[in-house]
């Protein structure tokens, strides 16, 4: 069992702990190796050594900084070749989404992405993953040899469920990367605009989705937000259309929030949105589609026409 950790500039991505928890669940006692890839991974290996795993493997090479899919796929392939795992687990981050399919294509092994649950252990395991925008959950089995590569959805396993032990021994892995094989030349990451609103600090949020239909209806959500003492936010399509600024976007490509109250107005609940808000304390979903995935995470649900329900809530709140 191999876990590939994610780190940047010597800082561990916390989702790695969730992936370790998933690996421990899947391993059923078989030893787990955690590999750390990077140019200078600092204290990440020591931090991970507190996990109940067999060993930490540090694969350092100058070509691994900055991140490129070509270099990471090469390094991961080398580590897999040496460790001969049955499963390779990674967190389903944007970085993994960039290089895991390349790795799978190169070593011609199966890849199961965005896994939310694991049934069984070892070779008998099946993996649950969303399909059709979360309307259905599939149980899938990788086919075509080992290792199978599996990426774990952020938030599907709890980081604090990862068993501690150790300290696990830290070993160096020898990886050779031909620098000329790395075709992508990245520039430093940047932020588009200053975040003028910090939705992370908001106590209450009213978020709008496609169900609002057109820009002219946005004031409806703003009125509801005002009546609730909430900030207005949105799912991705609303910001893509320019109906609300990008800085108000909730989800994997926007902000992650956990307010006291989250009202999802006409949001169907694609997984990219859910990861940004499912930690909210109380979630209200208002949607015309009773089957919308948003109702799976909601505490309170109203199936109906938001154009009738939102004004009715405003009227009710104004009664005091």
């Amino acid at each position: 069992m191999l876990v590939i950790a994610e780190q940047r500039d010597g800082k561990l991505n916390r989702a790695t702990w969730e992936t370790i928890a998933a690996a421990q669940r899947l391993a059923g006692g078989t030893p787990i190796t955690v590999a750390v890839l990077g140019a200078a991974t600092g204290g990440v290996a020591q931090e991970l050594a507190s996990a109940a795993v067999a060993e930490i493997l540090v694969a350092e090479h100058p070509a691994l900084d900055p991140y490129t899919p070509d270099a990471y796929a090469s390094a991961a392939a080398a580590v897999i070749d040496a460790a001969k795992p049955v499963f390779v687990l990674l967190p389903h981050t944007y970085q993994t989404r960039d290089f895991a399919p390349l790795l799978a294509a190169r070593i011609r092994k199966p890849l199961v992405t965005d896994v939310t649950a694991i049934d069984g252990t070892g070779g008998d395991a099946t993996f649950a993953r969303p399909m059709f925008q979360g309307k259905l959950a599939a149980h899938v089995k990788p086919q075509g040899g080992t290792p199978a590569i599996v990426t774990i959805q952020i938030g599907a396993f709890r980081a604090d469920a990862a068993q501690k032990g150790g300290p696990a021994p830290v070993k160096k892995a020898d990886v050779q990367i031909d620098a000329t094989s790395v075709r992508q030349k990245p520039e430093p990451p940047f932020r588009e605009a200053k975040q003028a609103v910090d939705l992370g600090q908001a106590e209450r949020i009213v978020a709008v989705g496609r169900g609002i239909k057109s820009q002219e209806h946005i004031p409806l959500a703003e009125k509801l937000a005002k009546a609730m003492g909430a900030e207005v936010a949105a799912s991705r399509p609303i910001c893509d259309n320019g109906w609300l600024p990008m800085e108000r976007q909730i989800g994997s490509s926007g902000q992650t929030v956990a307010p006291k109250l989250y009202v999802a107005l006409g949001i169907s609940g694609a997984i990219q949105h859910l990861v940004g808000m499912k930690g909210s304390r109380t979630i209200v979903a208002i949607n015309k589609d009773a089957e919308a995935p948003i109702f799976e995470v909601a505490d309170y649900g109203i199936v109906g026409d938001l154009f009738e329900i939102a004004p009715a809530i405003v009227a009710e709140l104004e009664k005091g």
Partner: protein
Amino acid sequence: MKIAVCIKQVPTREWQPRLNDAKTWIREQDISYEMNEPDAYALEEALRLREKHGGEVVVCSAGPARVQTVIREALARGADRAIHVEHDSLGSADAFVLADALAAAMKDEKFDLVLTGLQSDDQGHGQTGVILAERLGIPSSTIIMDVQIEGGSLRVKRELEGGWFQWISMPLPALLTIQSGINQLRYATLKGIMAAKKKEIRKAALPDGLTPAQKIVSLAVPTRSKQTQMIGGSAADAAKELVRRLRDEARAL
């Protein structure tokens, strides 16, 4: 510039899932389909690049005969011609099979740039584009929000998590997976729809011996992780009850 755009036909967003008897796939009889949304953005980006740099846009799709509808739609929006890898089994194929099928049909075309959506709204593996790049022997970059081409070299803006971005340069030919919202979509004009009828769709056969990398053991409507309290009644009654519960039970107001 010779640009390929890979598009997929997927059930519409309004579609309510129905399962087959074995509960291993969906009932395909009564589905209405549409172009996978991220692929529509990839097509739009390709059309804009052609407007700027000249060349042609070739739509590529692997699927049963029904995918001709979205191929015609792409041609109506302005693509020049199409390649269709046609086989009934491709409707439920996984990313490896689709990528191998597309690669076989595309490799002799020697495209300068291949665009596709970052993932499909049906199976949602998010793999097909990147595997295709590897099969074509070209570099890839994913979740792209801007494409610049100058003097034969490519510079793209890749979306990172939490509002961060990064510019990446790479040589052509290359493959990019496009994020929704990169541009504003155009729709087909009547003139475009008429013109599309005369455009070429080259049929390609599914190569033998492609093997899937995963098997769907079962499909189900997901179980609720929370006990959702549904509130019914008229809009006014539901609003009243919701406000009461948010105040008294959840203490969220």
